[in-house]
């Protein structure tokens, strides 16, 4: 028996997984650059949240058309993975449709349903492509969606289209070989969709058909391996990260912003209040965030999880009124900067060497940060619970507490609060004047 193809397959498989594991490791290293944040509480609630939001896609329905198309592609890819498992086993062992022997009739129905799913995925992908490129839905054409993000989005669709097409072509030629009792091709599987493609190949010589079937089989699996390793460089990483992203999401009510307990004792001392000695003050050496190192690891993971769908920006009041702020861009910038920092560290053998850049100003401008109304619409809109607002708030904190770079009006407002206890220049003693006014 010729074992060369099996060896070649195993080699490619190992290579694909080697690169994939390498990418995951890079991802882990980069995310670990973030500060710690405790999200290990409430395990039950977190698991439920992940099952609901990531697995069950509960938030995708807000846009019903995209929601339905997305669920088809999602279910399609998950279920067709069973077929992928068989392909891998066949590839290693040199068998053909090995599961057929063990599954009997069930196998036929499985293959049949995969085919129907594959067709539905193809149709959905065409719809997705049309929504981007023909209907030109506005959120896909915002300024931050130029160049790579635009190409990336289209590339993913091309990948999916070709993979599914190859799957059907492979089945179609396989089915013809089965019809001809070609050696090694046992009768297995129903082919409701790929049977329709048979006329394309029916006139071909049987040996040529065999070469075609093998070519489709190899191209299909190799493209999947390439796609697997493309993930790291793509917004498509969400298919993996949506799960941890929703598990580690902030479960607090949206209005509750993080309290920096590290400064509480200092403030109490300043106010002359009794110091509660239940904690040691560890006043941080830096307030807020100016670079990715200052964000926490969940915020960094958020940036890798972002699919750039733009639902956040399409509901952002600032973005809707033509301001520069786009919550999606906040996430994309964070990821780009994190990648830059990650490769800097890799190049310099584990140490970050200053590149005189940071997330603030080089990526995200003050103009963007000050346009936010903190309305939480972006957080509410994200289908996988990314929190752009927390990054905006951390960066504002840096601007105000480290740099005193708030807009003049806000500085006036804050000194009013300091001096009079109100954001306007009114005397605090006059708080009850309204009781003396008529009407």
């Amino acid at each position: 028996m010729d074992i060369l193809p099996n060896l070649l397959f195993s080699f490619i498989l190992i290579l694909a997984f080697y690169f994939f594991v390498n990418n995951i490791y890079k991802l882990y290293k980069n995310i670990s650059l973030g500060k710690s944040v405790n999200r290990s509480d409430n395990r039950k609630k977190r698991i439920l949240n992940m099952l609901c939001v990531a697995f069950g896609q509960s938030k995708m329905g807000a846009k019903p058309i995209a929601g339905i198309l997305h669920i088809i592609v999602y279910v399609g890819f998950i279920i067709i993975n069973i077929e992928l498992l068989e392909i891998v086993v066949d590839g290693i062992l040199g068998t053909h449709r090995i599961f057929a022997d063990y599954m009997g009739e069930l196998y036929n129905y499985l293959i049949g349903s995969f085919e129907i799913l594959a067709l539905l995925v193809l149709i959905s992908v065409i719809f997705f492509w049309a929504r981007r490129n023909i209907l030109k839905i506005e959120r896909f054409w915002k300024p931050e969606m130029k160049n790579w993000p635009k190409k990336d989005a289209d590339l993913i669709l091309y990948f999916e289209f070709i993979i599914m097409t190859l799957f059907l072509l492979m089945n179609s030629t396989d089915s013809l070989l089965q019809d001809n009792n070609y050696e090694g091709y046992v009768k297995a599987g129903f082919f409701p969709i790929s049977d329709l493609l048979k006329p394309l190949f029916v006139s071909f010589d049987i040996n040529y058909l065999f070469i075609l079937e093998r070519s489709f089989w190899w191209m299909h699996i190799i493209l999947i391996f390439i796609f697997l390793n493309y993930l790291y460089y793509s917004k498509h990483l969400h298919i993996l990260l949506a799960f941890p992203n929703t598990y580690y999401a902030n479960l607090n009510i949206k209005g509750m912003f993080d309290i920096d307990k590290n400064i509480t004792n200092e403030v109490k001392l300043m106010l002359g209040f009794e110091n509660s000695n239940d904690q040691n003050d560890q006043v941080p050496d830096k307030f807020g965030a100016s670079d990715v190192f200052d964000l926490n690891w969940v915020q960094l993971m958020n940036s890798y999880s972002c699919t750039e769908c733009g639902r956040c920006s399409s509901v952002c009041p600032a973005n809707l009124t033509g301001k520069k702020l786009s919550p999606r861009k906040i996430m994309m910038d964070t990821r780009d900067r994190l990648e830059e920092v990650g490769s800097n560290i890799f190049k310099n053998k584990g140490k970050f060497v200053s590149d005189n850049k940071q997330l603030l100003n080089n990526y995200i401008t003050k103009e963007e940060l000050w346009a936010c109304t903190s309305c939480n619409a972006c957080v509410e809109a994200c289908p996988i619970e990314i929190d752009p607002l927390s990054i905006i708030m951390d960066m504002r904190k840096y601007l105000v507490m480290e740099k005193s770079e708030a807009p003049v009006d806000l500085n006036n407002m804050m000194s009013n609060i300091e001096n009079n206890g109100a954001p306007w220049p009114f005397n605090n003693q006059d708080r009850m004047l309204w009781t003396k006014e008529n009407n």
Partner: protein
Amino acid sequence: MKVPTLLEMSSRGEKPEVVFWIGCAGSFDDRSKKITKAFVKILNNSNISFAVLGAEESCSGDPAKRSGNEFLFQIQALKNINSLNNYNVTDIVTTCPHCFNTLKNEYPELGGKYNVFHHSQFLKRLLLSGKLKVEGEKFKGKKITYHDPCYLGRANNEYKAPRELIEKLKANLLEMKNSKSNGLCCGAGGAQMFKEPEKGNKDINILRTEQALDTKPDIIAAACPFCNIMMTDGIKNKEKDVSVMDIAELIANAEDL
């Protein structure tokens, strides 16, 4: 208008059922003071024993915190918590969703644990307990669209209480294109109230006012003094004859208080 302060009440050895946290807008801004007064009238009419902090109240710290000034926020929060705890305050009601959110969600970690109600929630409770009756039919059949304040809606998931109160007026409640969890901000949140907006092609309050006017309402209902200011400005800009009224004003008005 006679409004007791906590200091006065405690010197008489009395304790109110609830503290009315007025907020800076409700104390100083002319438009918002009307909301404060309307709510006081309802409280008096329902025989609720309440008190205010008066000069002992200080900014909740919300605009400082949303601006990024955690230090100033904690100064304000700890000062206020100190005042509130001195009087053993347990229940607080406020007409400002920003104060409501800050007191309810951000004070507990700093030692201020109270039952905090937004006035729409409080009025709903009064209604359920029978202490408040809404029988006036002044707004019967009137088209009212309700604008969700971000810090009451998305931030605290309260979409029902204000709507139930409007329906109680037998008014015709209209929903805007963006409402409830999908509501559009009025443009004042995140300390935007106190600064000029960044460059864009439109002001946020204008966009929101347009959404409200699309429902062809007689009245735009609000439940936040800042939203009220923003929407009132929007209406002025559009030169439309539509009034912007707070939930408390609607009820006080319906009952001729």
